[in-house]
């Protein structure tokens, strides 16, 4: 339990630093903005209390805002993402429910489940974030395009990271 908490705190720090120091310097053009720090919210254990998820998302968003000078835009998007996560998990739960040894990764839950889970949540986050960034609907379609493209970019990045760092966790079913 304590180890899980520490692991998540470490993930929080590493992903924040990675996002701020490295990823934000990757030039992919304005239509593919990488925001893979949301992996933290995706990777929170299934049994995490939903209020904790909400607060963790909020703090994560505030941290990003502090670095990117975006007021509370990341925080708003992250809180919505954390809120949605609970419902999305319910929606796409396997027939026998989640059990304690399971983790929300490709290796544990399979490609289809993880892709659905990640794509929906990342899109919610990015959609909110990019519209907040524009602060209006005046550039509706170009913003939508940015949100979609960035969702794809972030998803691909996160998917690769999963294979890079969680290979050893795999259990044979």
């Amino acid at each position, binding site marked *: 339990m304590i180890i899980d908490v520490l692991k998540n705190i470490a993930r929080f720090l590493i992903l924040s630093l990675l996002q701020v120091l490295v990823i934000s310097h990757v030039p992919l053009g304005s239509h593919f903005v990488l925001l893979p720090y949301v992996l933290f919210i995706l990777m929170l254990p299934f049994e995490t209390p*939903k*209020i904790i998820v*909400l607060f963790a998302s909020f703090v994560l968003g505030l941290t990003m*805002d502090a670095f*990117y*000078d975006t007021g*509370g835009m990341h*925080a708003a998007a992250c809180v*919505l993402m954390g809120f949605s996560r609970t419902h999305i998990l319910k929606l796409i739960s396997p027939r026998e429910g989640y059990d304690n040894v399971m983790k929300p990764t490709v290796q544990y839950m399979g490609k289809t489940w993880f892709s659905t889970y990640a794509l929906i949540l990342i899109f919610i986050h990015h959609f909110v974030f990019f519209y907040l960034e524009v602060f209006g609907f005046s550039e509706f379609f170009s913003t939508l395009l940015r949100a979609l493209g960035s969702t794809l970019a972030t998803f691909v990045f996160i998917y690769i990271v999963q294979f890079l760092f969680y290979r050893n966790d795999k259990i044979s079913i």
Partner: protein
Amino acid sequence: MRNLISFIYRNHFFFLFLLLEVSCFVLIIQSRSYQSTSLLNSANSVSGNLYAAVSNGREYLLLKDANLKLADENARLRNQLKSSYDILPQKVFTINDTLYRKKYVYTQGKVINSTTNRRSNYITLNIGSDQGVEKDNAVINTDGVIGWVKDVSPNFSTAYSILHKDPKVPCKVKKDGSYGGLIWDGGDYRYATVIDIPTHVRLIKGDTIVTSALSDIFPEGVMVGFVESFERKQGDAFLTLKIKLNADFKKLNYVYVVKNNSKLEQDSLELIITKEEEKKNK
């Protein structure tokens, strides 16, 4: 009232979500207004220091680039300095004289590189063939003999220092004109050796040694140095003098390059003798 509380309690997750979102929007609105400064900005102590540390780190990676740019800029600025322009030493002039023939032409130059600690030392001058310097011109300064020109380029020339292992400076004792040859056997740049001074010369410490007229390079009578000590080596018919050079080779600055106008004529005449000697030897 109780119903309301129980309603909120039942949906506390949703209300918490709303509360957080509202506070986020408050933050956003606040950060967008010009009047108030944003509570969250990258100038706070955590993110500001992190960004400062990262930029420090990045500076190290970019040092090479920065150095290159600064060096370029320095070079450009130095090029604009007055000290990077030389006054052209065009101080050569000729006089038509029916009684006297001008033999030596003096050109003023500056030593821009010199060594004293090698066995054979060289000097670089800031004047070259464009200023009239030729191979085998003498290099002297107000203190005495410095060397002779080795190679010339349009605007520079290199010269043998007399601190060299091949002796080329014929000299004489000033007071009675006995001939000798100057050599340098390495070591101290302040001292040199004069060999082949006849034994009958009555020398004392401090006698002046000057260049002799036997040279087709150096004008006669240019200061070389002062006798420090002298000895007659075992089985040697001549005296060997240790002299203190008058010119300070560590402080070379302005020098004169001396061109001998009659050198070519003298050389070609002497060459005939050399050739005849060679023929005889065959």
